[in-house]
């Protein structure tokens, strides 16, 4: 079962400014995977942004050598089968 995935405009604008295009493509692939298998990724609440059920999940970001780890803050709406991505951060190892 796949879920529709939306990126908030604030996140998209941020990504466009700070990430090279190839990294953006890899990131979209990873987020798409999240939409296809939300149950695999959402294993427990992450509390900082738990408001309105937002959750975060660190994801290994191996496709682009320059980046090591990805954190996606998202809200999972099972009724509407939609995942809203609120924030994305990438850290070096």
């Amino acid at each position, binding site marked *: 079962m796949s879920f*529709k*995935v*939306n*990126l*908030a*405009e*604030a*996140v*998209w604008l*941020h990504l466009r400014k700070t990430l090279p*295009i190839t990294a*953006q*493509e890899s990131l*979209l692939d990873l*987020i*798409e995977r999240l*939409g296809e298998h939300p149950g695999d990724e959402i294993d427990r*609440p*992450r*509390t*900082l*942004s*738990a*408001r*309105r059920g*937002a959750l*975060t999940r*660190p994801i290994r970001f191996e496709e682009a050598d320059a980046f090591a*780890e990805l*954190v996606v*803050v998202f*809200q999972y709406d099972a009724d509407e089968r939609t995942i*809203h*991505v*609120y*924030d994305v*951060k990438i*850290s070096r190892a």
Partner: protein
Amino acid sequence: MVRSAAQSSAPDSALAVFQERVRVLTTLYETLNGLMRGWAERAEGFPDGVQVAVTRQYQAFSADLFARVAEARRDGETGGMDASALQDAYDHLRAMQMFDAERVIASIRDVEEGRVISLEQARRELQGQPR
């Protein structure tokens, strides 16, 4: 030669000290996590500015704890001791340090007000970009 009790128990002592350190750190993490969860449940009615300020406050608390967790993790690795109990705390606290509370709140407003972009739209926009 007969070894003294203190000599023979030295490695165990180091392990016991380390295990207690891990226990304290995981307990502090769970306590902080519980406080944050409680705040998150009550936060919705507060203005954005309050939410950002409280989030930053929690980030400051968690920065201190993250530094200690990361140090213990390193010490465990170099000393050959098991620090796996710290992994959840390490992952979560690390993620917390990376959040930008203002952008998360701006993004929540985006979603509420319909300013969203689908993955398909995002891909189309990327394909139109010069490499």
